[in-house]
């Protein structure tokens, strides 16, 4: 056990820090470009310098380096610290790109990966449907072949950034007579295709974080399929795996906890800071137990992955999502009690940020509501409980009607 990163990684860290500070903000005329274009420019340079998308093959526009989770960790810490625009749409870089690398054709890789990495091409995800939440494979949106095109009809929901994205990857039922999981294909759609209609969906805290997307005789090229017809379910699994991994990050929990501490320090209670109240101290200290547990669980996971020992940390990986949800919800509940009547303010409508630690009341009220989404998004907590019981303790699968 050694919590130091060691000379090799500290050198890399220094390089990353130097690069981050010298490359951003852009200077001269470049600084006058629209924000998004500045981001694209910076990303191109960061990829070229080996600080972004390091493991994507160079042929497709990445860094062409071996996977190294520790290198990625120190780089990310420095990029975060410097405030550079390194975080793009995760849907594209962390879900679509790995899927194409695993199941895409050479043409697809050539066409999509490079612009996705630089942020020129943004993606949204077309998985969930109004009738298919936890039971994703029951989706009903259809694509039928007509000549050399797919014709798509149906509806998707919970699509983030659907109004901004250039492209969508999604699951559609293409073999209606095949069994549930076998009739689905993984398709790629340009969002400016006629017949696609994304409509923002308002959340209870007021924000527009998701869209519904309607498809009305949308025609896309027959070649826009990843993997074979009817194999979309399998293809999508690699992507979902990545989504779950993403949620298993503890930075948000700690940031949120720090925000709560700040709130407790700044909230007066009978003329003293609320943080001096013994009951509040107990609640926050108990929460810190959960936050700390999350952090070291994540450290275990990262270290094991770095040693290609994923199997050793399967237990912690399976807990990540639900443990993180619990922390976020506990934080929100303490915050709302600290706020007292300030909690009566209308929520700020901020987008869902899992680990938000705001300073104003309205943001905390938003957080009080968005903290609920953790139990729903990316697989409901009840589904997670099933997975934990079945995979970790060999408990039997649920009895379900045939075919499900």
């Amino acid at each position, binding site marked *: 056990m050694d919590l130091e990163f060691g000379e090799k990684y500290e050198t890399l860290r220094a390089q990353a820090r130097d690069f981050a500070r010298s490359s951003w903000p852009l200077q001269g005329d470049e600084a006058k470009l629209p924000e998004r274009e500045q981001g694209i420019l910076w990303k191109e340079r960061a990829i070229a310098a080996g600080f972004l998308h390091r493991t994507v093959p160079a042929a497709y526009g990445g860094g062409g380096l071996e996977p190294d989770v520790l290198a990625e960790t120190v780089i990310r810490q420095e990029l975060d610290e410097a405030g550079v625009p390194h975080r793009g749409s995760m849907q594209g870089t962390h879900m679509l790109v790995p899927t194409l690398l695993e199941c895409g054709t050479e043409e697809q890789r050539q066409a999509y990966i490079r612009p996705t990495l630089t942020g020129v091409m943004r993606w949204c995800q077309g998985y*969930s449907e*109004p*009738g*298919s*939440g*936890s*039971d994703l494979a*029951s989706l009903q949106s259809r694509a039928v072949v007509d000549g050399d095109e797919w014709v798509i009809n149906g509806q998707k*929901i*919970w699509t983030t950034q659907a109004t901004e994205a250039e492209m969508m990857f999604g699951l559609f039922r293409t073999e209606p007579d095949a069994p549930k999981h076998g009739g689905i294909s993984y398709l790629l759609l340009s969002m400016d295709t006629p017949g696609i209609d994304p409509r923002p*969906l*308002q*959340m*209870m805290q*007021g924000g527009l974080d998701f869209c519904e997307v309607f498809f009305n005789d949308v025609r896309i090229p027959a070649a826009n399929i990843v993997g074979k017809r009817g194999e979309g379910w399998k293809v999508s699994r690699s992507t979902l795996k990545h989504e779950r991994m993403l949620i298993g990050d503890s930075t948000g929990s700690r940031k949120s906890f720090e925000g709560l501490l700040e709130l407790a320090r700044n909230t*007066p*209670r009978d003329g003293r800071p609320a943080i001096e109240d013994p*009951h509040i101290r107990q609640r926050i200290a108990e929460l810190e137990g959960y936050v700390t547990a999350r952090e070291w669980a994540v450290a275990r996971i990262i270290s094991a992955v770095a040693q290609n020992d994923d199997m050793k940390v399967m237990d912690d990986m399976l807990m990540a999502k639900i443990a993180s949800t619990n922390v976020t*919800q506990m934080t929100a509940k303490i915050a*709302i*009690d600290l*706020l*007292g*009547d*300030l*909690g*009566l*303010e*209308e*929520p700020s409508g901020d987008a869902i940020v899992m680990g938000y630690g705001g300073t104003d009341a309205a943001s905390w*009220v938003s957080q*009080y*509501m968005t903290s*609920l*989404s953790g*139990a*729903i*998004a990316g697989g*409901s*907590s*009840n589904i997670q*409980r099933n997975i934990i019981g079945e995979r970790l303790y060999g408990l039997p699968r*649920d009895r*379900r*009607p*045939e*075919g*499900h």
Partner: protein
Amino acid sequence: MDFTLTEEQELLQETVRGFVANESPATAVREIFDGERSAKPALWKGLVEMGIAGLTVPETHGGAGLDLLDAALASEVLGHFAVPVPFLEHTLTVTALIEGGGSEQQSHWLPRLANGDALGTVALGEGEDTWQPTHWTARFENDVVTGTKRYVPAAEKAGVFVVGIAGGGLALVDASAAGVTVEPMPTVDRGRPLFTVHFENAAATELASAAAQRVLDAGLVLLAADSFGAADRLIRMTADYANTREQFGQVLAQFQGMKHQIADMAVDVVPTRGMWWYAAHAFDQKMAGAGRAAALAKSHVTDRAQQTARQAVECHGGIGFTWECDVQIWFKRVMQDRLLFGTPERLRENIAATGGW
């Protein structure tokens, strides 16, 4: 020993329920949430015509002369349908006048409050959870009030304010008095908007100071009842959803995990009904410990309701988290009920102190 409702009380609930079920369906409440907090004057007017505004006003002043328990029963129904009307604040104004008003104040205001000509509201807290009489700082001197009150319900439409003043008493201010300024606040439950009200040398008359704690206690009871009604509705909404929505070829309620979540919501909420019944009854009978019973009811019921509201969202899945799902309306109602007049934590400090611990 008869801890049940009278036939009249059951009829009262039936009557209110019948009216609001028709006149205030979720779709109507939603219009307020979607719009600019546009009130529904007809709704309150209809309730006034039913006698709800004068429910606790003595018969000599044109009211029904009923008790806080009856008002709490009405609150339960209003919470159950998330009805966007100023019942709480209006009823507390009546309480203030009954408990602390002189005969002139009473004869002037009570008939107007009873017949709905005037809407009453209470301006108590001043921010930072200053709900207790000992916290108030608004100055009352020489028949004028000066100070700023926050989270005042329905202030925009009120004809009369009951204002908490330094020393723990109450003053009565005609809304038309010079020096009264109402400022909207964006608050969480759009059905029951709250305001900041500034009083700048506004003409006022004093009420007997003993009324202050009684008004607050009555408020705690009514909020508990409202919250109970709302939580009960949230459980039913969730059960209905779970009985309808299918996943993996069966309704959600078929999954025992979901079934037990709903049962746990019920175990949280259902047993609390008698608690606010009793708190209301103890208030009416001026029993020893009535204030403590009110604080116990408010803190416990609203805490359980909060937990239920959060579970209701979770059980509804993604849709439960959207603006278009009705859950948000009740979620926010419960939230406001829980925070108004003091959080459970703050109330429990009083419960401990008044328990002689």
